């Protein structure tokens, strides 16, 4: 990376907006916020050339806390906002952030099709397996026997969503898992995700200390994946289907070309379009 640009070097804190986060102290999202600033600093991307896009949820508050452009939209539609922005403005670095409910439940359809479309952007999912903002209901990634969700007091009894497996099957071009407790490692992975062409997804295990305090143990349970990232989707699928969701690192690097229509005018005057109507 170029560390000798004409613009002054931007430290990680230079990417913070100064708005104080409302997240619960102890929340994993603080670490991810730090990781994003470190990744952006690592790449020395100008804040004005970056847009952080989100939906609704605790982690979807992310844009407000960064000094980049941002959009905090409605629940579940971050990837659609981000797609429109990136297709319209390919010069920008576009990063979507959000939680497991926002991305895989209400926004599930957009997740599938954004993977398929493979627009050149990065999706950081802060996964805490719970709806924190609405007081701790089970989310798509919650384990079936978790009995503390008030809407599912006997557990959900249904299969948790496998974001990385589904992402791979749908065509995501870069797949990684991180832990918020590993702020520097997460930063590095996010930087790699931004650099990788096409749609990159990074699942960050980010504990909810209020509704899932047991997740504080994650930092002891996660471990770097014992193998290097593969570019073979079949191999990646086998690994993702058999790991217990606690291996971190870059798990898949694909090589599909990103979706990016060229926005280049080929006519002088809009009146030329009207010729087809002339009798």
């Amino acid at each position, binding site marked *: 990376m170029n560390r000798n640009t004409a613009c002054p070097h931007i430290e990680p804190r230079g990417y913070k907006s100064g708005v104080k986060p409302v997240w619960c102290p102890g929340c994993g999202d603080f670490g991810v916020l730090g990781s994003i600033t470190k990744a952006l600093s690592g790449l020395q991307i100008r804040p004005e050339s970056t847009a952080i896009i989100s939906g609704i949820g605790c982690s979807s508050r992310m844009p407000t806390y960064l*000094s980049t452009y941002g959009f905090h939209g409605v629940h579940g*539609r971050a990837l659609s906002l981000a797609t429109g922005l990136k297709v319209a403005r390919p010069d920008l670095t576009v990063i979507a952030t959000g939680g497991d409910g926002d991305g895989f439940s209400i926004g599930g359809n957009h997740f599938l099709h954004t993977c398929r479309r493979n627009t050149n952007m990065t999706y950081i999912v802060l996964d805490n397996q719970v709806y924190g903002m609405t007081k701790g209901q089970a989310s798509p990634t919650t384990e079936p026997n978790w009995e503390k969700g008030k809407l599912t007091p006997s557990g959900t009894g249904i299969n948790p969503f496998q974001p990385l497996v589904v992402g791979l099957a749908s065509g995501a071009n870069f797949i990684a898992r991180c832990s918020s407790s590993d702020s520097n490692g997460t930063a590095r992975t996010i930087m790699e995700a931004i650099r990788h062409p096409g749609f990159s997804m990074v699942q960050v295990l980010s504990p909810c200390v209020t509704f899932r305090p047991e997740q504080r143990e994650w930092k002891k349970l996660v471990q770097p994946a014992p193998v290097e990232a593969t570019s073979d989707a079949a191999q990646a699928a086998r690994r993702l289907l058999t790991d217990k969701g606690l291996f971190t690192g870059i798990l898949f690097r694909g090589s599909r070309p990103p979706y990016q229509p060229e926005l280049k005018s080929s006519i002088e005057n809009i009146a030329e379009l009207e010729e087809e109507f002339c009798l």
Partner: protein
Amino acid sequence: MSRQSLSIALTGSGGSGVMTMGNMLLEAVAKAGWYGIMTRSAGPQIRGGEAAALIRVSNMPIESHDDSFDLVLAIDPASMGRFVAEIPLRPDSFVISDPQGGRRSSSLPESPAKVIDLPMKELAKSVKGGRPNMIALGAIASVIGLSETSIFAILKTMLESKGADALGASRTCVQAGFAAGADLLEFNTPQMQQDTDTQRWGITGNEAAGLGAVRGGVRFVAAYPITPATEVLEWMAGVLPSVGGVLVQAEDELASINQIIGASFGGLPSLTATSGPGLALMTESIGLAVCSEVPVVVLDVMRCGPSTGIATKTEQSDLNIALNGLHGDAPHLVLAPSSITDCVFTTQWAVHLAESLQAPAIVLSDQSLGQTRAIMNRPADITFMARRSVPAQSAGYVEENYTRYAIGDSGVSPMAIPGQPGGQYTADGLEHSQSGAPSSLPEDHLAQLDKRQHKISQFNYGEHWADIEGSGELAVISWGSTCGPIREALARMRDQGQEIRLIAIRLLAPERPSEMAAALVGVKRLLVVEQSHSRQFHRYLRAAYDLPDETRVLNRPGPLPFRPAEIMARLDDWGEGTGS
């Protein structure tokens, strides 16, 4: 010059090619210097269903169908029953039908029209590769006085790609039909003035709306296919790349609306087109565009609702959702074109307003405008282009202390575009302070509600808010495609010496109380005309405006269009107390 016109319906089913034939006929009359419209009507089948091409040609521009049809050509008489309500006939109307073409509809014998046999299928059989619709085309051309050569010219341009054999077979069929039509019936085609001075266009309302959008500066479209809006998208998908734009086929309407909000946030004027079901899905995010103050245009080509309703047929029943479908207090723009020509202007204006006011604009077109092809005068060029207020910059930087949602006089605050250094802010659907930071303080909520309302209310919309035509104590008020038959009814009554005012509203939201009061000065009796079962437009008018004591309503649901004569009848009845 008085209006002269001729109405022809072509019906068929199961691959009989009535639409192709209708398009050729319209093309031929256009080449002959006439004006015209052609509306498609179809059953629910993707292929092989009943289809009708409803054509009206005239010596002057027309916006609606006539009271009845002069001529019906039923390639397949069994198909005609489906369209009995849509094709009113008179005793002096003619129905040309194929005696071997299947059983005549049971409704047909009730028709007062004269039925004339033309063995189209048999004639087509005598030509290798011949088709009955080409026999019919020749016969119709001959009956209404078009030249054989003019039809040949159309065949050449429209069928060339199908190869010499197909073209040859079609020519032979047209010739055979032309000969058969020569002495088929005695028909007085009105004298059509040839108008060659004015530049004329052949265009559908859907294409016209797309053109208005591109003229207005739209360069990004995301949309999901839906009847009857799809042709807007098909046309725009074709042209946007040439103007440096793009159309993205999205996975659903939720994605469509959010993609255009994202693109517009990035600085590109953006639009989506949909119909009622899609608009319903989009409403949450249209509210996001209101709150985050991102300009977008949502074109709703209305069809019969609720739910899937009748997807292929027209209705003016999305007025309520367009005006009131957003949750919270969410000021936005609602506009409606009142003719196919106006689809160009109103959509272009909607882009201009959305961009100027940083607000979503919903444009209500409908199936009858969108899927009708018109031969019309080229719409005038309009000068306004999309204009979005952006923050002042010095030396490439947005000036210090830039505040995205600053409260100012106009309510419109400059909108920084990503890429502009110093302009960084977070657009938010959460209520926010002037800086854009989320806020749950009552004073911030009130200030931003006021701001968003004020910018829409205080804007000078000029005279475009409505077309006020004519004068008099008796007035008709309407909107959208319904204005077509009303205009014709009023023109006929004017010819009879009766002066009646028309108020055709183009800007449905925000309300324009003082302009409306001025438009209604001197009006004692007001007839509200709308194509909605629950009188949505009348309820809206009552809520928003002071109406004359003597106000009556002529309403019905889609899909049947209003006919000029029934509007005239309702106005004539006024004094007799038979109105609603």
